[in-house]
């Protein structure tokens, strides 16, 4: 029994779950058609019941591909609620635009009349001005040029994009937005890093979304370093430091010769030390930001930082060498003490209208709970349709 166990263990220890792709079982076209019909009916009935589901016309094929693959009804309802909200926002924007356009003719007429009566030259931006207009393209060219210079002379930062299998679709899309912001904020800084995106899988949900944010990402002249290889093959192992929140060693000083690696994942769901496990497997040095030493962490929000916040912290650390200034990029809501946060919350409530004012000012005895605003599209209903009779 012992030898058997050991042999199995050997093979098991070397394999990892992280490399396996999540396999979706293949279904036949008739089965898919049948399932699609039922799901469409489900969406339609939920919409008729008053739940937040967009109209069936607005759900495209790529939506249905995603919906059919979803494991449960509650996951589907959450996606519908998200799409409904987007549609509702677009709708209200359209209405506002129309209202604004209604008075546009009169405004233009008024300005024209004023100009006709006025014999003097009009100075100002857009009229007569001594300033040259600097177009966005010029600024972009200038920033790209600095990035290319940074590729030659600046320290390097690696964003490790190998965590696609551990993220679900929503997390992957959030990660893509953060990766885009990393690139943008790095480019806009006075002294940019040489940013490398490693372990990139261009078919993944994250990278597809990143390509939609930056369409020219893969062009050869665009100053973005995309590698499908691992960073251990590009940089020597001795220089690499993996930044992970799960280890116990703080990063003391910034070393410009080291290549710092940040795991490009959104992992608010799991409590597993994924980045630490990867660093241990590759035998790399690890470090974490000295957040506890320099900041008073408030209750409530967790210690997770987004990727662009990390890059900003490292940029400032490189420029100033001072932790206090560079950790200013950590959002204040995480850092403020809980008592201060409650006080600022009361301040905001005082400015709203539909609130009992006597309880606000009596700070010591205030047992105050924030009121949910009545959903405007349900205000006319006498009872709450969405929870009556059926489960919400």
């Amino acid at each position, binding site marked *: 029994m012992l030898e058997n166990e050991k042999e199995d263990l050997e093979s098991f220890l070397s394999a990892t779950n992280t490399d396996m792709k999540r396999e979706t079982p293949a279904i036949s076209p008739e089965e898919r058609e049948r399932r699609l019909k*039922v799901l469409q*009916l489900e969406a339609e009935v939920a919409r008729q019941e008053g739940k937040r589901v967009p109209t069936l016309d607005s759900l495209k094929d790529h939506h249905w591909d995603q919906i059919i693959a979803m494991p449960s009804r509650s996951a589907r309802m959450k996606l519908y609620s998200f799409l409904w909200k987007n549609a509702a926002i677009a709708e209200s924007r359209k209405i506002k635009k129309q209202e604004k356009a209604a008075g546009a003719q009169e405004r233009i007429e008024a300005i024209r009349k004023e100009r006709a009566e006025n014999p003097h030259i009009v100075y100002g931006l857009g009229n007569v001005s001594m300033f040259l207009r600097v177009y966005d393209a010029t600024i972009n060219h200038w920033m790209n040029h600095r990035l290319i210079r940074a590729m030659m002379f600046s320290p390097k930062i690696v964003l490790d994009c190998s965590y696609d299998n551990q993220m679900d679709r929503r997390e992957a899309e959030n990660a893509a937005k953060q990766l885009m912001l990393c690139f943008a904020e790095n480019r806009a800084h006075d002294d940019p890093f040489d940013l490398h995106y490693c372990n990139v899988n261009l078919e993944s949900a994250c990278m597809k979304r990143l390509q939609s944010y930056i369409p020219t990402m893969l062009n050869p002249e665009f100053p973005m370093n995309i590698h499908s290889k691992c960073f251990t093959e590009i940089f020597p192992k001795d220089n690499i430091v993996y930044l992970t929140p799960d280890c116990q060693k703080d990063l003391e000083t910034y070393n410009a010769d080291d290549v710092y690696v940040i795991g490009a994942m959104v992992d608010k769901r799991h409590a597993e030390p*994924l980045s630490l496990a990867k660093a241990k497997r590759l035998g790399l040095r690890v470090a974490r930001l000295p957040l506890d030493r320099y900041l008073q962490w408030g209750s409530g929000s967790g210690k997770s930082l987004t990727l662009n916040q990390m890059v900003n912290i490292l940029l400032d650390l490189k420029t100033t060498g001072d932790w206090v200034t560079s950790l200013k990029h950590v959002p204040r809501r995480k850092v403020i003490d809980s008592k201060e946060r409650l006080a600022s919350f009361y301040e905001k409530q005082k400015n709203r209208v539909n609130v009992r004012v006597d309880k606000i000012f009596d700070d010591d005895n205030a047992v105050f709970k924030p009121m949910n605003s009545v959903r405007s599209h349900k205000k006319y209903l006498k009872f709450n349709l969405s929870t009556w009779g059926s489960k919400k």
Partner: protein
Amino acid sequence: MVQCQANAENGRQPNDATLGYLLRIYNAKYHSNGSSPESLSDGDQADVLNIWKILTKKHKILDSTLCENLIAGLITTRRWREGLELLDMIKITRTPSIFAYTEFIVKAFSMKDSSLGWSLFEEMMETIDDSRQPNCKIFLTYLTEVSDGVQDITSGLEKMLQRLQKYELLISVKVIDSIKTLAAAYPNLLQATDCHINFKGKCSNCQLSLQAKTLSNVDFEKLRNSLLKKVVVGGDVFQKSSPTEVNDFLNFVDRTGPYDCVIDGLNVAYSKGKKKPQSLADMLVSVVKHFAEKNKHVLVLGRKHMNKWPKNSIQYVKDNASMFLADNLSQDDPFLLYAALKSGPKTDIFSRDLMRQHAYLLGSELKHIFRQWQQQHQYSLVTKTASGRILIKEPTRHLVCAHKIKSTWHIPYKMQYTLHSSDSFEIPEHWLCLNMKKI
């Protein structure tokens, strides 16, 4: 119904969701009128059947919401049995809800078809989420039918109690009151009294000892074999430890095992919450002493930073027990469980940790076996008195679900119905001692 006529007069046909809600209204009316076949008028019942015809003609496969609304409606009519196929239709997109199953089960019981009722009940318990509890209505309806019924009272009650045992359900006080009234009606057959179970497992009423919990050999083997793969290694061995450390540990256990008890060193040391290494080491020493005095062979698990603790304490531990120190970054709980299970079914563990994440990793079938093993074998340190004596909480050795000893059932219950079951760390306080006399 009035609303339907109003809509038809407007020229609009009511949409599917409206018809669904209408069925719910009929269902509510049926229940408020006493839930019998005559609760709804013939006109209303015909309306329900009409809606069913409309919906099935319109769509070949109905979605889960419409199916559930239809079930709620069909229950009120005489043709409720044809609604059972709707359950299969729901299963295409999701598992049927407790509401759907409960309506059918309650109707089956009230129509004297208890075998259908119980088979649906078992299907419900197998398929719904593990932590959810069935509604009291099911048991209350069944008990009313048993008391009115022609069949044998005791065998009818047996059927229900066996299901309680099989699914380890904790019923509410309402059901217990119903059982008590049944017992009062038939004093020559049943005798029901409230009782307390002391920590040794003895009933205060009938003085019988409750059945001892045992884990079968098969189950224990299953648990042992999966622990290494699922908990110690998990998906990625580096998340909890490293391959060299796991191999070292396995060799260590082979060399120095088997053990009588495995102690989680850090959990024990931090029990009182002190931070000084001296007081931490003292806690550990007192626990090891407790076992050494009984000549038991123990394993103490810790982390490498414990080498910095006061030398004589660590030396005492090393002299009187085996000690394994894991990396500072590794998790020690999986090692604890592995060493305990490897040493055999009689080994105990000493820790206050509830081990929820390890239970989850084992999968739902093994989680249950793991919890049983854990309840039988986990000692936890309560505190250390000023005189140096340690107080230990022993594991409960008796069954905590409804079960039968000779001809007496002991049934635990809770004072209020809750939708989710607790994770069974507390022993139920209230028990009913039910004696079934054989005629």
